[in-house]
């Protein structure tokens, strides 16, 4: 396949994945069944993973699947199923402040899109953005060793902090 053909195929794949993600995200906030909402969250997070894979970031994509779909959503589903006595057609998933919420969402979307467009404009991605897991591992333990240790300590501190906040005395 030529380089141009690959680019066109990438753009089509991006459009399809993005459309599926937008549809699932809208259904996620409009469905009245919390289990369905969690399953639509799986679709959205799977779409994010697919976009990472499309960008050639295999490590981040697979980590996304393992951590978010494998752990976070399963935790949600267990939490819902262990705490709810009745699942389905819930009352109280709506909120009277729909219009302010819509305005806030539109504002956030506008600022984000404006920031991305004004920051990157029509800059082109390099043709080959692939990063293998081996390269990620090499650079994490050489070039980025200080930031790596810093986020490790940050995660540890957040973990201990969360336990200290949430513990019963």
């Amino acid at each position: 396949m030529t380089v141009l053909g690959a680019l066109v195929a990438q753009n089509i794949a991006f459009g399809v994945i993005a459309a599926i993600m937008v549809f699932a995200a809208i259904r996620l906030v409009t469905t009245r069944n919390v289990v369905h909402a969690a399953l639509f969250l799986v679709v959205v997070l799977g779409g994010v993973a697919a976009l990472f894979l499309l960008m050639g970031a295999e490590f981040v994509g697979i980590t996304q699947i393992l951590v978010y779909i494998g752990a976070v959503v399963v935790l949600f589903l267990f939490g819902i199923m262990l705490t709810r006595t009745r699942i389905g057609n819930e009352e109280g998933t709506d909120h009277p402040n729909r219009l302010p919420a819509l305005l806030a969402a539109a504002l956030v979307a506008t600022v984000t899109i404006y920031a991305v467009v004004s920051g990157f404009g029509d800059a082109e991605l390099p043709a080959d953005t692939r990063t293998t897991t081996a390269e990620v591992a090499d650079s994490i333990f050489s070039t980025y060793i200080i930031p790596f240790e810093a986020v490790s300590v940050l995660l540890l501190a957040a973990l201990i902090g969360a336990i200290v906040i949430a513990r019963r005395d």
Partner: protein
Amino acid sequence: MFALFIITVAAAEVGVGLAILLLLYRNRQSVDLSEADLMKG
């Protein structure tokens, strides 16, 4: 590469946020934000 670090920092923040929400529920027996109005004049 930066995406990895940003994801990690976001995970740490989510952990602290969940702990705060848990504490809010334990202190007020509700997660309804319109009831968390102690600072309202």
